[in-house]
């Protein structure tokens, strides 16, 4: 929608800026997100993100229901990664209530979370290339791999996307031997797909031309804006909560944290590819070491679950960055008094303007694609 049209210049040739509203219905905004871009010719000179088109009152609803009932709602935050969302909430509640999670449950959580990570990263690369103009192919390949992982999730938890799989003190259903075999099969075959994916994309001249030196996020800015996840690591910030907190059993696995040098869109793309390879490493170790035993802490009640007064913050390394839940429990303890979610993609989105300034308007969509937002999480 063009709001201002430059008048016929008088005297010296000058151009006026125009404002373009991109979204909320736009094929490249990854949902209902709007950017008010100010353009000088084709160059972006200002950009204001407008959010709230998918504000679903997650926090307010959670403050009115039991702890257990909030778990299925976290599935719908970042709807690609229901498993890590579940984990973040369960981790906070377990911290607050002092619940010890059985060994096997911790391993299963690691397995499903890392599978979620490779699912998310392959899909986000597909979507980013969709925005870049590679219509279909990478996205279709990514969705094909996603289907394989979703098959496992469905046989494990019963649902494809909204798994609602984790419970306070463990997981809901045990992973049977058949499912472990299925997971091993996925993990064994995934590197081949990744090689193929890289062959398709990484050296592609069009991709290099469009992505390199575009949307640079300096390291200092990334730290100051508390950017997390692959985006921060692409800018060279060595910060991975799996390494920093060592939550769950992540301390036992041998994996590296890939870091970028430039912090442009290409780095953000390539970091995700490398992270998938590291996830495969973790998965191999976790599936190898998966211990026998209980999959849920037996002392945790499903109903009438109460938490003594107090507050706690639990965070996990979700595929998009640091996902944390800050919870306050009061006297009754049946439901949270305050429930706050720290969504990674919302905070990663704050630097969008800094990355876009000076670039062409066509680059805005790939920069947005490389941030990896999911509107369910941004607006909550």
């Amino acid at each position: 929608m063009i709001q201002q049209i430059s008048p016929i210049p008088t005297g010296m040739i000058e151009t006026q800026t125009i404002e373009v509203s991109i979204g909320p219905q736009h094929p490249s905004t990854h949902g209902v997100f709007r950017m008010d871009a100010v353009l000088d010719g084709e160059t972006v000179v200002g950009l204001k993100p407008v959010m709230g088109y998918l504000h679903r009152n997650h926090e307010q609803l959670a403050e009115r229901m039991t702890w257990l009932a909030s778990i299925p709602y976290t599935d719908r935050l970042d709807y690609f990664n229901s498993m890590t969302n579940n984990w973040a909430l369960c981790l906070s509640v377990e911290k607050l209530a002092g619940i010890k999670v059985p060994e096997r449950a911790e391993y299963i959580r690691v397995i499903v979370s890392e599978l979620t990570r490779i699912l998310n990263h392959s899909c986000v690369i597909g979507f980013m290339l969709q925005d870049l103009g590679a219509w279909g192919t990478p996205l279709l390949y990514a969705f094909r791999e996603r289907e394989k992982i979703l098959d496992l999730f469905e046989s494990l938890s019963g649902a494809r996307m909204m798994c609602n799989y984790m419970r306070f003190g463990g997981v809901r259903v045990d992973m049977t031997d058949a499912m472990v075999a299925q997971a091993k099969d996925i993990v064994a075959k995934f590197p081949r797909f990744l090689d193929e994916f890289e062959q398709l994309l990484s050296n592609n001249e069009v991709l290099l031309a469009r992505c390199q030196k575009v949307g640079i996020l300096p390291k200092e800015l990334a730290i100051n804006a508390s950017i997390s996840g692959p985006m921060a690591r692409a800018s060279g910030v060595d910060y991975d909560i799996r390494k920093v907190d060592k939550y769950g059993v992540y301390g036992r696995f041998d994996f590296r944290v890939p870091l970028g040098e430039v912090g442009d869109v290409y780095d953000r793309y390539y970091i995700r590819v490398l992270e998938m390879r590291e996830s495969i490493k973790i998965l191999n170790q976790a599936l190898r070491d998966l211990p026998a035993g209980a999959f849920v802490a037996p002392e945790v009640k499903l109903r009438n679950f109460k938490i003594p007064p107090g507050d706690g913050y639990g965070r996990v390394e979700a595929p998009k960055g640091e996902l944390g839940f800050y919870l306050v429990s009061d006297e009754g303890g049946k439901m949270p008094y305050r429930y706050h979610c720290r969504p990674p993609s919302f905070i990663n989105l704050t630097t969008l303007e800094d990355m876009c300034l000076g670039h062409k308007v066509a680059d805005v969509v790939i920069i947005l694609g490389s941030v990896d937002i999911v509107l369910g999480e941004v607006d909550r």
Partner: protein
Amino acid sequence: MGFLGKGLFQGMAVTARNFVGTYFDRGTREKLVTYQYPEEKPPLPENSRSFPFLVYDGTPDAMRCVACKICETECPPQCIYIVMDRDEKGKPQQRPKVFDIDISVCMQCQICVEVCPFEAIKMDNDYEKSQYGRFDDLIEHLPDLLKSNEYYNEIKPTEAKAVDAKLKAEAEKKAKKGTSKPAAAAPAKPAAPAPAPKPATAPAGKITIPEDAPFTAEQRAWLAGFLSAGGVATSGTGVSPVAVAETTGETPVPLPEATPAAEAPAGGWPWHDPGLGMSQRMDLVKAAPLADKLMAAMAQTDCHACGYDCRGYADAIAAGSETDLSLCLPGEAETAKKLEELMKEAGKL
């Protein structure tokens, strides 16, 4: 590095490989060949879930649901609506009169299944539910929801077998208790009082269930309560104390063999029978201590909706460790009112 455009050619080679590969891949489905959906349906894993349904054993009349309303309270989006069935005298019948699930709201989270203590509600895997209408077609009523145990066994064999085994074990335990009870030599809990006076005679029109009738112990207990309720026509709706006073002494209760008392003392808790009305139950505990009176005010389903069984909740209230009197979901307002009344009588409120 090669020549300019090498990356493009590499990419095209990958695409070509995938294009040809899918043709030779029909058997292994490594490349996930398209499902020709309406003709060829993708196999669903056993855990797969869509919407809840209610399980019945044998006939739809013998549904497992006792209308305890736990799922209604626990359902995160609040899409379940239950009204307990009552006979013409207002006596609870331990089964739902109305059980509606608004599948246009249901978020398929399976929490209702997890919290149900009676294995009554389970997840279906039928996803073809597209409808033209919104209000008429998308609300599932009791007739739509009721499905047989055989159907459940068909869609989820492993899970259903485990459930069946569990229910059978429970029923056997109960049946054992029921038969050995008259001979038992009072291994009572210390808190349990002497049993309330037993009724002298069974009601005239009492129908007894033959021993060889094909019922599980649970069904037997339910039927006994049902039949005795049908045979009794003395008291009114039974909340008024006056009515209780009038019917004292004549109120018949079912035979003790039919009462499903779990860990009752010798003779059982005669009032622990969901088939009885509130006034009948209160009659039986006229001379009993407070904990028994409180217990008699409950709905007697042992549904654990309050977090205890009926005995435990009564003991907790009597001991003062539980102050909330409104936790009995199947008892509804009637129980809450009665509990308050009793506590006031005892001077504890």
